[in-house]
């Protein structure tokens, strides 16, 4: 049984610190989520555990962390459902040549650079129970992801959602996220299959069958929900509960198949009907509790696993700096070079690169999985968390500097993007 006093105290402190840091970061024109991510780090061994170890041990006793983790994971499962919901496959289908090129380069460039970096880091920060291929692929996936929700939030706040830059950025981020998650799923399946009793072919067959059922069966069921919404302008509580049950069931299926809970909830969101009003309605029902209560718990739990004090000595800080530089060069540089190659003006190309370089919460989710399956070590995890924070933090000031709003061209033939506000 959890110690309820401790659990409620933890939640209270986490929510208070996250709100405070979120509001503080908003003053510096940063998305609230960046402040909340930072709050998580402050509550962990990097700061609280260092300056007040007794209080930290009282507030977060090791025996209580399982419950906090369980709650935070439920939050991330729902969050991934919302991220999937915000991704519209039609946007990907209607991409112009330039968007196709930018999205593909924004995956391959960080992937190749991350793999090159892996050649250097593998003998230094990994161990021989992890294969180089898995290590390099994971580094690539973690560096090539874009924080779709944070990016959408920045675009909304700067009124850039309907600009050509905003449309291309949203489409590219969607492609990047889907690709990144597919690669991560591949790695997780390989690792779990290597240590499980089920053959990898059975696992792959199961995943394929599951995807077919979701896309051709469950999706059909969901269209009925959308029709009901169109008819009555709302969905009953029972139907909303059914929707939530489907998302959880989908998450359970992918976990059982050996991938991860999060893939199921993401797929469930991705196959949902994309009529904007319907999407907005569902988002409104789920967002508040997820953003205000459950995600801060995830940030805190990630912060509790992040220990920047593991980066002892100049060598470790050099690795961390190198990771940040390579991540930015791959994502920002790669996207910018590709956008420029398609004829986009320099400033817009740089703005697109900056937007694509935000990893934010999606980066943390991927890193969390990496630490869980022990493909990355605690020190490397901490470095990658710092990298995710830095690259997300730098987006707004860089955008102010290189692509202020008045330089951004309006979209000519826009495909409306779902306004995900997570």
């Amino acid at each position: 049984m959890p110690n309820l006093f401790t659990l409620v105290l933890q939640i209270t402190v986490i929510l208070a610190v996250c709100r405070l840091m979120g509001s503080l970061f908003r003053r510096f024109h940063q998305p609230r989520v960046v402040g909340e991510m930072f709050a998580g780090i402050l509550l962990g061994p990097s700061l609280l555990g260092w300056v007040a170890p007794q209080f930290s041990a009282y507030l977060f006793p090791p025996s209580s962390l399982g419950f906090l983790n369980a709650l935070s994971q439920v939050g991330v499962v729902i969050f991934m459902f919302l991220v999937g919901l915000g991704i519209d496959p039609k946007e990907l289908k209607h991409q112009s040549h330039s968007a196709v090129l930018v999205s593909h380069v924004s995956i391959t460039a960080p992937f190749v650079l991350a793999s090159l970096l892996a050649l250097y880091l593998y003998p230094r920060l990994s161990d021989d129970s992890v294969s180089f291929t898995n290590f390099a692929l994971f580094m690539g996936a973690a560096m090539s992801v874009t924080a779709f929700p944070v990016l959408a939030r920045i675009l909304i706040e700067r009124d850039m959602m309907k600009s050509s830059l905003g449309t291309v950025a949203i489409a590219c981020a969607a492609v990047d996220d889907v690709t990144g998650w597919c690669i991560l799923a591949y790695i997780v399946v390989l690792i779990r299959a290597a240590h499980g009793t089920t053959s990898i072919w059975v696992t792959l067959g199961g995943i394929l069958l599951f995807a077919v059922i979701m896309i051709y069966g469950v999706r059909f069921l969901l269209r009925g929900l959308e029709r009901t919404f169109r008819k009555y302008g709302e969905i009953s509580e029972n139907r909303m509960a059914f929707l939530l049950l489907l998302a959880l069931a989908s998450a359970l299926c992918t976990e059982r198949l050996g991938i991860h809970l999060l893939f199921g909830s993401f797929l469930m969101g991705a196959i949902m009907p994309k009529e904007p009003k319907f999407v907005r309605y569902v988002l409104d029902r789920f967002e508040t509790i997820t953003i205000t209560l459950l995600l801060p718990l995830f940030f805190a739990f990630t912060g509790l696993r992040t220990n920047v004090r593991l980066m002892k000595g100049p060598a470790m800080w050099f690795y961390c700096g190198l990771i940040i530089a390579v991540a930015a060069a791959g994502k920002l540089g790669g996207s910018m070079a590709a956008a420029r190659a398609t004829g986009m003006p320099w400033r817009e190309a740089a703005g697109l690169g900056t937007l694509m370089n935000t990893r934010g919460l999606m980066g943390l989710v991927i890193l969390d999985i990496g630490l869980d399956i022990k493909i990355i070590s605690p020190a490397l995890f901490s470095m990658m968390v710092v990298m995710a924070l830095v690259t997300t933090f730098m987006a707004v000031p860089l955008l102010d500097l290189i692509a202020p709003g008045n330089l951004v061209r309006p979209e000519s033939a826009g495909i409306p993007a779902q306004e995900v506000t997570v």
Partner: protein
Amino acid sequence: MSGTNRNFVLVYVFLVILPLVGLAGILRGGRKLTAPVSIDGVWSLRVDSAQLDSLPCGKVLAAIPDKAISISQSGRSFVLSFPGAPTVTASGTLDGITLRASLTSPPESSSQTGCAGQFSLLATVDRQADPESLLGALSATNCPTCTSVEFEAKRQAPATSKGGR
């Protein structure tokens, strides 16, 4: 094929296809790399408590109820902790199959016992043993005349859940 399309294909090959070929090469080349031996996990410790007690400030270690050590590894460096006594931690380095770490007794135990003991741990990994084992010795850093206490640790949680070779 129009000029625009031809340009697009050329740029695509240069920026996407070629890097992917390069990626395949990197993955192939990287297989030859070797990483430090894995010591991450929980190890059950066998040590003579009476001998440990005889070390200056050894009572702190002898009093730990559950003689298990947990190692959290990051490449060549690692953090060692005792699940039975979360405040006792040590950090060390791995050189080949040799572990070196220094343990410091926690401040609160120092105030209770008047002991601010420092211990050094030197051990080697025996990868042939099943389960893998650590063979080594604990000694008091500030007491050159004290005899070191030998120990053996067996791996409790081998790298079954680890990221796959």
